[in-house]
């Protein structure tokens, strides 16, 4: 919740704060346990290559999850992210194929712009059309995917058509950390700080926590909602570029079905589906956990078919635990009413 341990908060740390933070703590513990068990059974799980692969896989999902978290915190949802990722990846792929000289930064910007446009369409429809976000983004999920198919037709952009520089960007590292991971971290940290330490961020939480009260508090609810969708769209677009760089092969189907993974990551990461609470750190941890589970199950020789079932069970566990924690906190808070001193 709001009490993630950053410096600057007065030392009024109570056991209560710990309980409140338990949700993210829980994911970290689960992650640690998973890594430990897997590494014991197969030490290569901790090899540099393996960790790199997990982090690369996480990077794309985490960028999407951060955007989704922003939207979910405002009590909305964006199901169109998978399609937006596809459109952005294909746009960037086509551009790079036709202009091999294009700098990577430019590719990132274009991808994010494509996404931002899709996101603002979602936002405007939700705000001015007064249409529920679930319906709007379910609609744009189809529309954006359809547009990508129209455009791409049957063509596929193969790794050998993409400029070497771009593909290298997908694998190269800085100080041993892949660029993709760095970008994801940057996105995470910036969004995390804005959400936590800036007025705009707090207003997003406020809107999600109580739309009615947000209006009374004079928050520009409509503008903020559009902004949240724009961020989610732009990040989905950015993720599209990362996707293209990582996989090198892009067709119109890129990112199909991602939306549910992303929502799952966000939910597992402790962001409440009804808005108002949760952090992007949690969402990113959720993405890391889901990706690690995938890798670990493969390494543990657990039948790959169990993977999806385990992920599903985990989601149920996460939201169930969330409710339990919330109920316990509520009970504790009730007992600690204030009284005149």
């Amino acid at each position: 919740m709001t009490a993630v341990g950053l410096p600057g908060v007065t030392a009024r740390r109570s056991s209560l704060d710990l309980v409140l933070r338990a949700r993210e703590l829980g994911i970290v513990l689960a992650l640690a346990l998973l890594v430990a068990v897997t590494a014991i059974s197969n030490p290569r799980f901790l090899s540099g290559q393996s960790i790199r692969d997990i982090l690369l896989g996480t990077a794309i999902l985490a960028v999407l999850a951060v955007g989704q978290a922003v939207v979910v915190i405002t009590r909305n949802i964006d199901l169109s992210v998978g399609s937006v990722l596809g459109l952005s990846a294909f746009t960037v792929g086509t551009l790079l194929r036709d202009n091999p000289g294009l700098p990577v930064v430019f590719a990132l910007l274009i991808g994010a712009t494509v996404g931002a446009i899709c996101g603002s369409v979602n936002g405007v429809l939700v705000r001015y059309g007064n249409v529920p976000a679930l319906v709007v983004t379910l609609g744009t999920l189809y529309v954006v995917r359809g547009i990508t198919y129209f455009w791409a037709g049957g063509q596929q952009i193969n790794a050998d058509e993409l400029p070497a520089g771009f593909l290298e960007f997908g694998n190269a590292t800085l100080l041993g950390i892949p660029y993709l991971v760095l970008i994801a971290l940057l996105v995470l940290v910036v969004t995390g700080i804005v959400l936590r330490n800036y007025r705009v961020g707090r207003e997003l939480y406020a809107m999600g926590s109580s739309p009615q009260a947000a209006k009374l508090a004079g928050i520009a609810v409509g503008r903020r909602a559009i902004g949240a969708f724009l961020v989610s769209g732009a990040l989905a677009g950015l993720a599209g570029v990362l996707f293209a760089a990582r996989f090198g092969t892009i067709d119109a189907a890129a990112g199909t079905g991602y939306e549910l993974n992303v929502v799952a990551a966000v939910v597992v990461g402790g962001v409440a589906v009804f808005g108002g609470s949760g952090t992007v750190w949690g969402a990113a941890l959720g993405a890391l956990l889901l990706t690690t589970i995938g890798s670990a199950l493969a390494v543990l020789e657990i039948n790959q078919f169990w993977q999806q079932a385990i992920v599903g069970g985990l989601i149920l566990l996460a939201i169930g635990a969330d409710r339990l924690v919330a109920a316990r906190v509520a009970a504790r808070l009730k007992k600690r009413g204030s009284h005149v001193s």
Partner: protein
Amino acid sequence: MSADSTALGADRTSGLAGRFANWNVAIIAVTVVVLIVAAATVQNFGTSQNFGFLVLDLLPIALVALPMTLVIVTGEIDLSVASALGLSSAVMGYLWNSNQPIETIIPLCLLLGAVLGAVNGFFVTVLGLPSLAVTIGTLALYRGLAFVVLGDSAVADFPALYTDWVTGSIGGTSIPNVLIIIVALAAVFGVTLHATPIGRAVFAVGASEQAARFAGVRPGRLKFWLYVVSGLVAGLAGVLWTLRYSSARADNGAGLELAVVAAVLLGGVSIFGGKGALPGVIAGVLLLASLQNALRLSDVSNEALNVVTGVLLIVSVLAPNLANAVRGSLQRRRHRTDSTPRPERRH
């Protein structure tokens, strides 16, 4: 406000019930127009054989959309239906492979579906978790279990007696057998929703759970059973799917949930609950399926349908809102009142 029905009285025919009727009439009219235009302009669309194909294609969506309508009208959602369908299909294949008689397998699969629905219902009504999150979880869980059960193999060779019945037509006519199932279930669900105390409770719970509780309705129990029924029908759809393709696979029906939700919303059901009607939903299902069929017959690519589905979906929700907004601004000009803030809802 009831007194001043002068100028606006005419267009404000009769509040909600009227508006519904209007939306239903609209979507049914659009569907009929699409059918007529397609029959006139698309070669082979109007043939009886094509009608059979059309019905078979819309079978799973039509079945699953029926309970989904009730679930959405109560203000909840069930995204796990397609996975429940897949698990039912996988279990059917598994049991068939282990040489169980089909006459036992089919009821078992229906029972399984009901159990899967009950699991959703438990999480949503007993633990009080948000249905969107719960059913995204079970969407992954049930699909995963389907793969656990059947792995990646496909089971075929279901008895011809059954597969032929599913793909066949009523003796001599060109009316597909499965149409009987669709019509029968649609009648059951339609009557339940629109002409029984249960249906009244469904609408009341969706529009205001608290007020419904104050009127003696038990929202938890109602929703629980709706989830059970939703699972049961998904189980049935799994059986029919398997028989239709004579192929039981863990990935059967993957991705169908969004198409079902789209069809239901297109049919005029409010995602917030409390509003909707079954004839509209059936028209919505038919509209989507016949558009798909006609577009394919005219050699328009699959992708065009994606765009059409999405646009229809948004427009179907946007249009009534825009109409309301226009009506509202007219009224506001007359009264200069501002609108009462509506109770907060989401998604």
